[in-house]
């Protein structure tokens, strides 16, 4: 009996592609021979739009890049703009930024874990756990800045407003709750026989390949590279906090899940320290609204999905001459076809889910 190659179109509308991603898979039986990702379905030309907006006007667009972690995008853009303009935010603003960025990292990782389990066929339960707990963070953000998904809370030189009364208690309650509830996730997933069978030794990403493809963030750390910008190139006040850089041993899908689980604990540690040491003062920026942009600046920050970079070039006017977004998911997805060649088609979804991509920042 002879086999012939079969081409399968996975996406653009597919429940487990996490957005509009189109994978063209060539199969020999059940084995993937070739994978050709097609992206761009969500391309909104945000980099071109930036050239006709001032930096202040551009801030809400950054929310729409990685819409699961808007606070972190705000932060990356703020820091790049501040680097270009030579502005430093007040200490209280810096602490508040750390708190909201880490809360958003927890929310993002929760969603990543929930959808990953859903992709593996753990229908509904883990995802509902994740959504239930993420909702608590969203409610905190709702109280802080009035938005649930696209926050636009950070400003160049500070934040939009101080913590409202009662918000710090909400955050403390959430941390106590999340620490109590995390063992339930471990009971449900971490040691689960089916979950391990579906994810251990599946989609092994060797350290060298990960670095070669520019993979960053939890995916890189799961491959055993202890690299975290918060530790290695500290920005804001991250150097004042005690936390660990979590790494995995094998770089398989299970490790990528496990790194995210443990990073939630580290983020909670950071939030606790930041909330405890929150300095007094005014976090609201006292800077101009219109800036003259001269020279260029490149700034990268540790987003939940990896290193987010903003490259801003000015020509002396108020509008950026060029603004480039280096998105972590773009690099993380580019390694996919190298990873899933020779794999069973049923594992392709597992690998894709474990990479935790967001199409909004890939297509921009």
């Amino acid at each position, binding site marked *: 009996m002879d086999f012939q190659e079969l081409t399968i179109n996975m996406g653009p509308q597919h429940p487990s592609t996490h957005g509009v991603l189109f994978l063209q898979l060539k199969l020999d039986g059940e084995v993937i021979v070739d994978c050709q990702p097609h*992206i*761009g379905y969500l391309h909104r030309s945000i980099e*071109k739009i930036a050239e006709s907006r001032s930096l202040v006007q551009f801030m809400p667009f950054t929310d729409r890049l990685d819409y699961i972690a808007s606070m972190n995008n705000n932060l990356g853009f703020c820091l790049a703009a501040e680097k270009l303009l030579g502005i430093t935010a007040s200490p209280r603003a810096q602490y508040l930024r750390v708190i909201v960025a880490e809360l958003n990292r927890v929310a993002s990782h929760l969603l990543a874990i929930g959808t990953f389990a859903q992709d593996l066929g753990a229908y509904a339960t883990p995802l509902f756990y994740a959504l239930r707990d993420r909702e608590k963070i969203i409610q905190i953000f709702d109280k802080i800045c009035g938005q649930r998904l696209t926050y636009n809370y950070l400003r160049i030189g500070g934040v939009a407003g101080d913590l409202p009364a009662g918000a710090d208690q909400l955050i403390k309650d959430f941390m106590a709750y999340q620490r109590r509830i995390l063992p339930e996730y471990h009971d449900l997933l971490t040691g689960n026989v089916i979950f391990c069978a579906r994810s251990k030794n599946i989609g092994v990403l060797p350290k060298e390949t990960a*670095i*070669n493809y520019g993979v960053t963030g939890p995916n890189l750390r799961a491959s055993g590279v202890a690299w975290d910008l918060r530790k290695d190139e500290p920005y804001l006040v991250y150097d004042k906090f005690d936390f660990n850089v979590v790494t995995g041993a094998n770089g398989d899908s299970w490790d990528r899940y496990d790194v995210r689980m443990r990073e939630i604990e580290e983020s909670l540690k950071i939030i606790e320290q930041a909330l405890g040491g929150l300095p007094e003062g005014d976090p609201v920026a006292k800077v101009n609204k219109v800036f003259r942009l001269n020279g260029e600046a*490149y700034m990268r920050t540790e987003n939940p999905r990896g290193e987010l970079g903003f490259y801003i070039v000015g020509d002396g006017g108020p509008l950026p001459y060029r603004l*480039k977004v*280096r998105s972590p998911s773009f690099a993380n997805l*580019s390694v996919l076809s190298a990873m899933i060649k020779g794999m069973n088609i049923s594992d392709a979804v597992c690998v894709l889910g474990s990479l935790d991509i967001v199409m909004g920042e890939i297509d921009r």
Partner: protein
Amino acid sequence: MDITTIIHSLQAKFPGIVVGASADQLIITKEVVKPVFEFLKNGPAAFTSLHSITAVDRKDTVEVVYHVHSFAHRVMLTVKVILGNDQLEVPSLTLLWGAADWLEREVFDLFGVRFEGHPDLRRILNPDSWTAHPLRKDFQMDGIVPRPVK
């Protein structure tokens, strides 16, 4: 190795390399793109990660901007190649870094810079049927992109 030592070692090997506006920025010519990046990646500086490739349209020239990162020495280096507007061609780095594949396709799509030796230089974000390169300054936005209200 700090950034100045790395740049000195590079300048010793490739005369003609100019330091740009800041100390971590180099300007090289397109003839030496391949050997310079090979030296950066495999040499003592060990820039193992190609962080990003982008371009800036300066109207009569196009700057291709590379950001490379070294885990071993914890430094990031910006390398610029300035191309004349009539010759938008630069050697591809796909043989050195897997990351270059998609990054170069993006720069080709948005700026029209051709990467010689790229195995699969297709558009990546815009439809294949397009002929324009939208991040060029001469791109006509009217009718395609809404302008902000004045």
